[in-house]
């Protein structure tokens, strides 16, 4: 198999205009604004899609087709009383949701979210600024995103431990177990594509898959793709792996005592993580983005597909039990991931 050398990457990078500090600032603000908005809109889409799959109407009363429900929910979240339980560790309790939201957005800094563009010259002050597709183009982008998502573990964990509530504590314990276990699967499953491309940079992944659907890594690494998706569901706390806040067992898990905007920050962080996982899956396995023509639309469609898939799975599958979750991780997914890496290595050597 062909390994992309750094030489070819350099030529790829060269015909992109220079990235200025202003461009990165603008990009950061765009990511923060748009992803927060998408997280809000995502709740509406999720409720609608689930409703249609279950032959219901979903939100219908506020505005046309219930579209203004997002605004109503937003007003509710912002105006709700911010309750801190009496016996809770107040500082940690208040900081925990911020960790979830912050790590989710920091992870998005190293991910290509939206294609790059240049602001038209006629706009005052910021006109002519080139806005890159990746806010911080690290040459180890994938590792950074995985590491930041690993740090996101502390949000639910500290929230559960600080609130002096047994449901919260059980939710926190489940967080630690689930996230730690599935990080192993995420890392090992994405290792095989990394070996083929020979780089940890999203730009290199994109370049390696340029030139049509036949070059997509999903055809070379179907096993890794499926493993990554399953682990991604677990890491973003989606059904069938949403044991951290399983209503029937632990009330709301780590989020039991939270209300108002602090709860909302957990929610935004979760949706931002869903988008991050969708973007990684789209760029690493499904060919990513191309700079010319309708490339920007395709990457949006790919991300939307993964987002939709998460809703679809939620409508179609029941929860798993915690012991089934651990069995699946350590006795099924991890061995398959290791075997996949070994086979990939052998094929590359021969």
């Amino acid at each position, binding site marked *: 198999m062909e390994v992309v050398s750094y030489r070819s990457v350099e030529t790829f990078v060269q015909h992109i205009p220079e990235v200025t500090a202003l461009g990165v600032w603008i990009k950061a603000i765009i990511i923060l604004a748009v992803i927060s908005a998408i997280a809000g809109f995502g709740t509406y889409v999720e409720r609608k899609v689930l409703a249609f799959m279950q032959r219901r109407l979903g939100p219908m009363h506020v505005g046309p087709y219930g579209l203004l429900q997002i605004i109503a929910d937003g007003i509710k979240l912002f105006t709700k009383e911010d309750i801190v339980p009496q016996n809770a560790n107040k500082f940690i309790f208040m*900081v925990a949701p911020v960790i979830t939201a912050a790590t989710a957005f920091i992870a998005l800094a190293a991910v290509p979210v939206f294609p790059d563009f240049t602001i038209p010259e006629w706009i005052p002050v910021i006109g002519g600024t080139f806005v890159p597709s990746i806010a911080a183009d690290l040459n*180890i982008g994938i590792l950074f995103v995985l590491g930041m998502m690993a740090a996101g573990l*502390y949000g639910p964990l500290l929230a559960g*431990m600080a609130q002096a509530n047994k449901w919260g504590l059980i939710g926190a314990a489940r967080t630690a*177990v689930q996230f730690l276990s599935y990080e192993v699967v995420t890392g090992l499953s994405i290792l095989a594509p990394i070996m083929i491309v020979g780089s940890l940079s999203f730009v290199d992944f994109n370049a390696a898959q340029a030139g049509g659907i036949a070059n997509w890594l999903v055809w070379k690494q179907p096993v890794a793709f499926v493993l990554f998706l399953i682990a991604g569901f677990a890491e973003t706390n989606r059904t069938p792996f949403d044991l951290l806040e399983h209503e029937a067992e632990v009330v709301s898990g780590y989020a039991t005592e939270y209300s108002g905007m602090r709860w909302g920050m957990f929610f935004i962080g979760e949706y931002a993580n869903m988008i991050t996982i969708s973007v990684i899956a789209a760029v690493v396995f499904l060919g990513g983005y191309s700079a010319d023509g309708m490339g920007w639309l395709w990457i949006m469609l790919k991300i939307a597909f993964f987002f939709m898939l998460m809703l679809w799975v939620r409508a179609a599958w029941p929860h798993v039990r915690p012991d089934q979750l651990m069995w699946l991780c350590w006795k099924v997914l991890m061995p398959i991931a290791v075997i996949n890496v070994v086979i990939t290595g052998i094929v590359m050597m021969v």
Partner: protein
Amino acid sequence: MYEAIAFYLFSALTIGLFLITVMSKNVLYAMTSLAAGMVLISGFFFILGADFLGVVQLIVYVGAVMALYSFAMMFFDATRDIKEKNTPAALVFLLGGLSALVLVLIFAGPIHSDAIQALYPMHEGVGNAQDVGIVLFTKYLVPFEVAAVMLLVAMIAGIILAGKKMDQSLTKDTSVDDADEILKQKDAK
């Protein structure tokens, strides 16, 4: 200039956070500040341009080691303070003196900064991960393999320790085999 600001900011925050780790009597504060300090240390690697090591610091210390600590913390009541045993004054004196000596040496180090050279300087155009990999698999191959064997030994030992009573269920009554018999026993009661 950005780097200088970031460096002093990170240094102050790291020292402050680690001070909280040592001084605090609250488990939760100690753990949180230690984890946050680890994140900030990875910031130093990023400032130095060692992206790969920075991310490894993040994944290994923040994502794995600290998470295991915090998992152990689950067994304590995290919202209460811990009664600490007071250490003997002689030990405090000795350790304090040693740390002061080390600090003086560290601050005096840059006087001879011209004597410090990078043994394995970074190559232009080659990524961080490649540079680390090349050194790791040539010069430091033996320590690398020894570390791998050590981890393997630790893993096997862990499995054996944890797996001693694996064939017995903790939740199920082992004297009763199937659901029918459980029901029968309930009826009998």
